[in-house]
């Protein structure tokens, strides 16, 4: 299901690969990595909130109570709703 794989690096943490069309948080779990907190995996709880500081991505629906429009514009996302389009550099916390 994954066409082309992207490298996801965590600032001050590990790295793992994520397919295009794969959600970053689920790729992290699949690779046995644990830098980002795993909650509902559905964009509702906010536990997996991170900031993408490098690279391109698309997002699925995320609760606006967890990521406001302004935050979203500044790169804040819920990792369970992020699909990479290129390699990504991600800041946790």
């Amino acid at each position: 299901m994954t066409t082309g794989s992207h490298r996801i690096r965590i600032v001050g943490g590990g790295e793992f690969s994520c397919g295009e069309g794969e959600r970053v948080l689920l790729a992290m779990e699949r690779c046995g990595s644990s830098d980002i907190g795993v909650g509902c995996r559905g964009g509702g709880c906010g536990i997996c909130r991170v900031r993408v500081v490098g690279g391109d991505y698309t997002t699925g629906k995320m609760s606006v109570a967890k990521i406001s429009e302004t935050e979203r514009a500044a790169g804040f996302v819920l990792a369970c709703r992020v699909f990479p389009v290129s390699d990504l550099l991600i800041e946790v916390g």
Partner: protein
Amino acid sequence: MALTGVISPGYVQLRVLDLDEAIVHYRDRIGLNLVSVEDGRAFFQAFDEFDRHSIILREADTAGLDRMAFKVAKDSDLDHFAERLLDAGVHVDVIPAGEDPGVGRKIRFNTPTSHVFDLYAEMELSETGPAVRNPDVWIAEPRGMRATRFDHCALNGVDISASAKIFVEVLDFSVTEELVDESTGARLGIFLSCSNKAHDVAFLGYPEDGRIHHTSFNLESWHDVGHAADIISRYDISLDIGPTRHGITRGQTIYFFDPSGNRNETFSGGYFYYPDNPRRMWQAENAGKAIFYYEKALTDRFMTVNT
């Protein structure tokens, strides 16, 4: 009829981020019947429920709980409870019939933990409810996890003792079981019944109000909990924990999340409660066993993730 006043959990309205995705989850995976979709809300009924609907999903830009409702035995109970709520200093709104399809007038109140509850006496019967003449076990074979009914909600907030107090003193619920920090007397979890079940609603301590921990569905057996686990794996549903058992209520259970991150539970078993039963309690230092009887340890996700 020995059960009077508030007789059962009725329905819950949850917010979801994507209604179509949520419909697939609740209809095809949990196995509820989709009753109707109107004005951005979807209504569902479990195959063994007599009333029109028990789950309402509303598409919104956040996940979480809009309101939970209990059914009372007769219309005059609504006036009776409205008066008692007002006497207890609880604000009450009267909602005329028609806010939800097939539902009569409602009494709406808020708890100190910022949860919204409805009381209602009348709901239309379901067209797909159980038979009553020479009743077969089901009309059409159940789908998915084969949930028999919406069973209870567990709600998160700060002053859960104050919320529970309304249910006990005003609505005549019983506290069946609780998780207590004996050094401070603080309640960490309170399990309340209006019926013969181990719980019909639960409150769990959490630093923020108005949150829902889970919406729970009853299954017929422990074997069905295993079947639910198979469905969760087969369809890549987000698993929280289980299959396992609770010490509190003794339910055999599995927890997972809907596509918007609202936690669901499907469970079977649990003890019967009678109003003369002594209250059961767990000490906070045994919280692991109280919550997860087999693992004997809490998980961060179960304690901190909610919507």
